[in-house]
């Protein structure tokens, strides 16, 4: 029997207080996610239950019980407190998927500080922009990533501490650096979790838009209510499950459903901290006897590409439930997974701003391959007319997805950018920026983004950010960046550039520009292709018309080009 039981029945009498009651929370009480993910589980008698089974390169393994998580998060919180870090200070986690990242996240929340996880592959500029916006007080990182921090340190007087979790003493620590070894530090038995309230800030995740700099999405401790219940009902986590969320906590899935969801339910999760290969993933599922697997379409398509023969080499019979997030899961992938694993991946739709699942498929509900499913109980969803922003009553007519912003995990604002936050609403609806239609059975079907943001492998890339970085390359005079279709990643970044006089448009320069962006921003933002042009399409007022280039890439109609500048 699944946790949700009947979806239809849940809709009838739904109230978020279901989760509040299960979590023993009443309005006005203290609510601290860090405490809920560690101390409370121990108090429920699960102190000795494994919380984290971690595997690194070469099969290196570490295991932590819920009591270990409690003690180590106490120790981290206490260490940060001794450094002078206080509630609501921003503490950045800039690490690979190592245990310190997961447990550090819990420790930061216990202290009442705001966890700011950043993807460890970010280049120094991506890092700087996000730290600057957040005015981050401390950065917890590893030796392998500290050089990117050191490079920009002079521009960040607000960063008081850089905490190295794997310092080995081989080289001297530098300015503002301090060593902290989570496993070897004297464990702190008692740490009073900061009495955060429902609206106290908890997590700051960064996301990209069409224009402007990345936005810091502010979440609060009350988000736990919907993260807990969606994990329970959609991911269907049950007492003896071994859960594997493949997402990196540098992104929202990795925290909402890679830390908060499973640990607030007292579920054992495992983490594989190595690069992707079909062999290593299947081996991991077999070895760890994974029962619930939450992954992403890009990974699923890569597994499809690796073929079905390899699957026969592994015993994957432990798997009982699969789900996917990050970008639309194509029907072929759903059908394939049913064929090879005996279970279909259930697509879930949500985003950084929503903090928890919004439209999803449910255990027990009929799946229509390629559909995002139906709204989670308690979520008021619709598709809106693109001009009037009124709900569309006609079945199958495309429009903008809209949500009534009244669920617990909804973002509270963009950090230091309330103006942009307000622009996300029309007519009382929150607009996530995607287009869809609803079929006759109430299922939602994704059509595409409503802006120029590029979704590559489930990560949003701002064309503006890449274009700006391109202009910093000595050879580039003008740039325009659009999405290019990609079989595995759905979309990848493609750049169109014009060159300054004296530079030769050749393959070597293309590679130099690609690497320039990779190091400056991130591998995700690196153009997978650069096309040299003599000129870029512009309006008569000089604005580059990205949509013309986008249409060319996707083989679509270019549309109205009456404002296009003559050559």
């Amino acid at each position, binding site marked *: 029997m699944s946790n949700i039981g009947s979806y239809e029945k849940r809709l009838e009498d739904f109230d978020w207080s279901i989760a509040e009651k299960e979590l023993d929370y009443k309005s006005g009480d203290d609510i601290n996610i860090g405490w809920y993910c560690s101390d409370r589980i121990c108090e429920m008698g699960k102190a000795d239950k494994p919380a984290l089974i971690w595997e690194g*390169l070469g099969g290196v393994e570490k295991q932590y019980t819920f009591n270990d998580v409690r003690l180590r998060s106490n120790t981290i919180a206490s260490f940060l407190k001794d450094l002078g870090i206080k509630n609501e200070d921003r503490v950045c986690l800039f690490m*690979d998927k190592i245990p310190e990242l997961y447990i550090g996240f819990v420790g930061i929340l216990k202290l009442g500080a705001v966890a700011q996880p950043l993807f460890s*592959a970010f280049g120094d500029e991506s890092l700087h922009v996000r730290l600057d916006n957040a005015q981050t007080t401390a950065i917890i990182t590893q*030796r*392998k990533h*500290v*050089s*990117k921090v050191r490079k920009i340190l002079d521009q960040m007087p607000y960063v008081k501490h850089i905490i190295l979790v794997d310092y080995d003493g081989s080289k001297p620590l530098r300015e503002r650096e301090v060593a902290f070894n989570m496993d070897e530090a004297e464990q702190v038995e008692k740490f009073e979790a900061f009495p955060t309230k429902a609206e106290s800030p908890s997590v700051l995740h960064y996301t990209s838009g069409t224009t402007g700099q990345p936005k810091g999405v502010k979440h609060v401790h009350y988000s736990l209510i919907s993260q807990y219940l969606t994990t329970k009902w959609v991911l269907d986590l049950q007492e003896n499950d071994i859960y594997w969320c493949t997402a990196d906590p540098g992104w929202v899935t990795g925290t909402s459903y890679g830390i908060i969801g499973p640990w607030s339910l007292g579920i054992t999760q495992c983490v594989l*901290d*190595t*690069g*992707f*290969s079909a*062999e*290593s993933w299947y081996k991991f599922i077999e070895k760890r006897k994974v029962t619930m697997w939450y992954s992403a379409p890009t990974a699923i398509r*890569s597994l499809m590409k*690796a073929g079905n023969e390899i699957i026969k080499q592994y015993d994957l019979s432990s798997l009982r439930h699969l789900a996917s997030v990050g970008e639309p899961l194509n029907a072929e992938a759903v059908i394939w997974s049913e064929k090879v694993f005996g279970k279909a991946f259930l697509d879930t739709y949500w985003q950084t701003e929503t903090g928890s699942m919004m439209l999803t498929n449910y255990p027990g509900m009929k799946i229509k391959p390629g559909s995002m499913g139906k709204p989670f109980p308690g979520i008021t969803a619709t598709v809106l007319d693109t001009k009037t922003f009124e709900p569309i009553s006609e079945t199958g007519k495309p429009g903008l997805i809209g949500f009534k912003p009244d669920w617990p995990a909804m973002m509270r604002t963009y950090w230091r950018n309330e103006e942009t936050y307000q622009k996300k609403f029309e007519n009382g609806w929150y607009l996530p920026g995607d287009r869809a239609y609803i079929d006759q059975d109430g299922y939602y079907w994704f059509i595409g983004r409503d802006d120029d943001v590029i979704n*590559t*492998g489930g990560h949003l890339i701002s064309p503006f950010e890449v274009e700006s970085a391109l202009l910093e390359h000595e050879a580039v005079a003008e740039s325009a960046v659009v999405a290019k279709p990609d079989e595995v990643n759905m979309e990848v970044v493609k750049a169109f550039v014009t060159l300054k006089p004296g530079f030769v448009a050749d*393959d*070597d320069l*293309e*590679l130099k520009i*690609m*690497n320039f962006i*990779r190091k400056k921003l991130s*591998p*995700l933002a*690196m153009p*997978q292709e650069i096309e040299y042009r003599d000129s870029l399409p512009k309006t008569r007022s000089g604005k580059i018309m990205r949509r013309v280039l986008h249409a060319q890439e996707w083989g679509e109609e270019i549309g109205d080009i009456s404002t296009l500048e003559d050559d």
Partner: protein
Amino acid sequence: MEDMKEIILEYVIEEYCDEENDDVTFDTPLISGGIVDSFSMVSLKRFLENKYKISIPDADASPEAFDTVNKIEVLVKRFQ
């Protein structure tokens, strides 16, 4: 002529490593070891194609084939 493996190794260290993790050898797992991610693999493939004037089909550019410098050398020689 400079050894192909040396050239590739030098490029990998120069482009994908920093002073704290530059102890890469011919056998160090690059992809499964997280030194080169799947997106960055595109730039490594482009380097090999430019340098050795070859074209590596996408179907052959698998994470396994790019996992060590030794394996990359085998791959490049296949297409020379």
